[in-house]
């Protein structure tokens, strides 16, 4: 897993918010789920995508530089 440096915080935040937003839009747009499920689902997605982004992005930036 990555060591999150200051320079990576912004891209990590962008990526995880993007994934979470996609989840939120898909879940709330379908009309199948109640508000709590969508909210908690978004929270869980955000947590997992934060970990993923924090692991992937620093090494990606390092390779690019």
């Amino acid at each position, binding site marked *: *897993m990555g060591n999150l*440096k200051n320079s990576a915080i912004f891209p990590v935040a962008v990526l995880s918010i993007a994934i979470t937003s996609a989840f939120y839009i898909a879940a709330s747009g379908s009309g*199948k789920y*109640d508000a709590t499920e969508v909210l908690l*689902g978004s929270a*869980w*997605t955000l947590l997992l995508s934060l970990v993923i982004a924090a692991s992937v992005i620093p090494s990606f930036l390092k390779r*690019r530089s």
Partner: protein
Amino acid sequence: MKKAAIDVRGMTCENCRKKVTHALEGVDGILKANVDLKKGRAEIEYDEGKFETGLDTGTDKEKRHSGTEKIDIRIGGMHCASCASNIEKSVGQLKGVSKVSANFSAGSASVEYDPSLAGRKEVEGAIEGSGYSVIRDSITLKISGMTCANCAMNIEKAVGRLKGVSSVSVNFSSESALISYDSGSLGIAGIKKAIDNIGYHAEERLEGEEAVDREARQRQEEIEKQRNNLILSAGLGILIMLGSYRMYWGLDRILPEILGNNYVLLLLTTQVVLGPGRQFFTGTYKGLKHGFTDMNLLMATGIGAAYIIGMVNTVYPEAGLGGEHLIFFETAAMLTAFIVLGRYLEALTRGKTSEAIRKLMGLKPKNATVIRDGKDISIPIDDVVVGDIVRVKPGERIPVDGIVIEGYTSVDESMITGESIPTEKKTGDEIIGATINKTGSLKFRATRVGKDTTLSQIIKLVEDAQSSKPPIQKLADKVAGHFIVGVHILALVVFLFWFFFGYDAFFTQSTRFVLSPASLGGVGHFSFALLLSISVLVISCPCAVGLATPSAVMAGTGKAADHGILIKGGEALELSQKINVIIFDKTGTLTKGKPSLTDVVSAGMPEKDVLMYAASAERGSEHPLGEAIVQGAESKGITLVEAESFNAIPGKGISAEVDGKQILLGNRKLMEENGIDVRELENGMAKLENEGKTAMIVAVNGKAGGIVAVADTLKEYSKEAVEYLKIMGIQVVMITGDNRRTAKAMGERLGITSVLAEVLPEGKAEEVRKLQETGKIVAMVGDGINDAPALAQADVGIAIGSGTDVAKETGKIILIKDDLRDVVKAIEISRKTIGKIKENLFWAFGYNIVGIPIGAGVLYPFFGLLISPELAALFMAMSSVSVTMNTLRLKGYVPSVGIR
């Protein structure tokens, strides 16, 4: 206006480049700054009058000068000025190196290079690639706060980034870090700070008894902590599970109603989560605070999510997470209990794999009896100084290394050398600390004390070896590193799949987890998808992958040390099992290196007389051949007489008068010059010479009387070792400076067909290189002093019979006792250990390969099989334990040769 270049580290993007440019241009005197993100370099133009770069004011060890770095490297193995020139040539060929100067007498090289093109590692690699060794400072630090193999990788990354660090290897099992660094560039405090900064704690390893006590105490504390956590979490967990399932199996008839109350269960679960489970949350927090994530996060998210759902369903059942019948408290509690069980078992078994070191440390006696001012006084062993006269009574352990000055005894050295037969010791003999005096009283002078004793050196070597990693582990670490991010991606995919599609397509009201009586009927999309996502996170924890290699390396090197074999690190272990050619130095390795009398041939007089005349004549000689004849005669009980008028004739032999008779002893030339007819002895001479022996004619009063022959004799187990190696499919080669005929004869006696004869000592390394060029993995067995260059050149250098100063030996494997069968044992142990590592990795990855799909619910649509997060945790704990148990089987391994 002047120009200069500066290295800039830490830039990762265009924004960083702009920031640096802006900062530099803001400095008074700097006219222009051009920052290159890719090269990590800034070129500046400045006004000399206004701005001083300070580029020439670095330390003595390292200076920066217009974009170049200068480093001094200490080098071992240089024997002459041409070695220095070889190093200059090979380092000079590296891209980016502008200047290199190797100093043979100082044993060092000074190298200037462009850091954007070359680095310390490349320079050191080029030096080692030319057959020399780079002398590095190294330190072993004790690390606390690691919870998994990933923590070890985090520390490696953080320390590896420090300038001056050549290599770092962190062993999760032994909680230690072996760091090789340049003390001119970096201090120990800097390394410790880097480790402390990322949330772990590093301290220097203590020597001796204090270290044993502290390590044992720490290990015991960890075991006790996890045991208490286990008792609490398992006790409460069972209670919570019974309460949660109170409505099933008729439990409502025996359990009080209050136990089924959600608020009571919430209270109990809170104790589990905040008590034994707290370690996962604090571990996660510590990691995140320093930008690192580890296994604790997997556990904390799993436990935390189950607990929060339960709490929400208890306090606010209308939230839409399944209501008050789906509380998942048993999941949170049992998940904690099973993960703690895994940690407890790991702490127990980790202690067992490092038993070898503790056993060695335990050999050191606490006190010694020294004679000071004519009195015997008992003092702590750490107070013994070099030169002290030490007294040891029968049955006592010898406290330190020394030389016997009085007494005769037999000493059990098995704990150090692996040799079970006691060795006799008399005045002038060396004795090793920690061995046991069996029969007589001894007085000896201490020659090595404290950390210089043989035992301390062995402990240090074994510790270093156990902290190092074989290449196979680097691969496993890499896989495990990517594995964690892969698991999170998978957990997200599993969550999304079951949330959006799987639940609607496959979920039925009667769904239940394996071994659970309660149906998941009321569970909604989110809770169902979340539970499966948690199961994936928990079951995927690659703890077993992290334990697979270090635990086997510890057990393997420990087993080798038991047999008096010191394997210096994981790389040696891995290479040893690949050896396909093994080269033995002849003199001193296969043979005793000392001539002895082998044959006496008579011609017209009794053999006894031939030997008596020859030995008596040689009595005054100091030549090794003469000494061999005298010793041979004495061992046969022949009484020698005093020789008169002894005369050595260089290159031919000797003449002397013995018992009134004129004796000549020497080669054909000596006989020819003295007109002695040797035709009768010619066949015998030829036969002995063809056997590789040195034959000498004995003439008495002008008449040839017989032949005496001497030869270097084979060591006791040389032939047996060669036979075993051949059975193992290894090609055996003998290398010697002797002439071809002698070498061939010796080879025939040993069953070695590949003989490299007439090779000068300096040519041995070249012969090793030639064999390596054919693609073979070559081991060289030699005495470690004369053969040092060849041992360094070989893929695996095996130094044999080094005696007591093991730390100074060249070679990746050191055999403490002079027994060639240990070469076979070393290879067998390395094969067994690497085999064990492969088995462990197979099992560790196997668990994950089988477990992850089950955890993800792949079997659910087909067989209705679902695994709960707590069962996933049990499965994961078992994988770590089974890997360690498999490793522990190495302890019972007995080598096939030379069984004690």
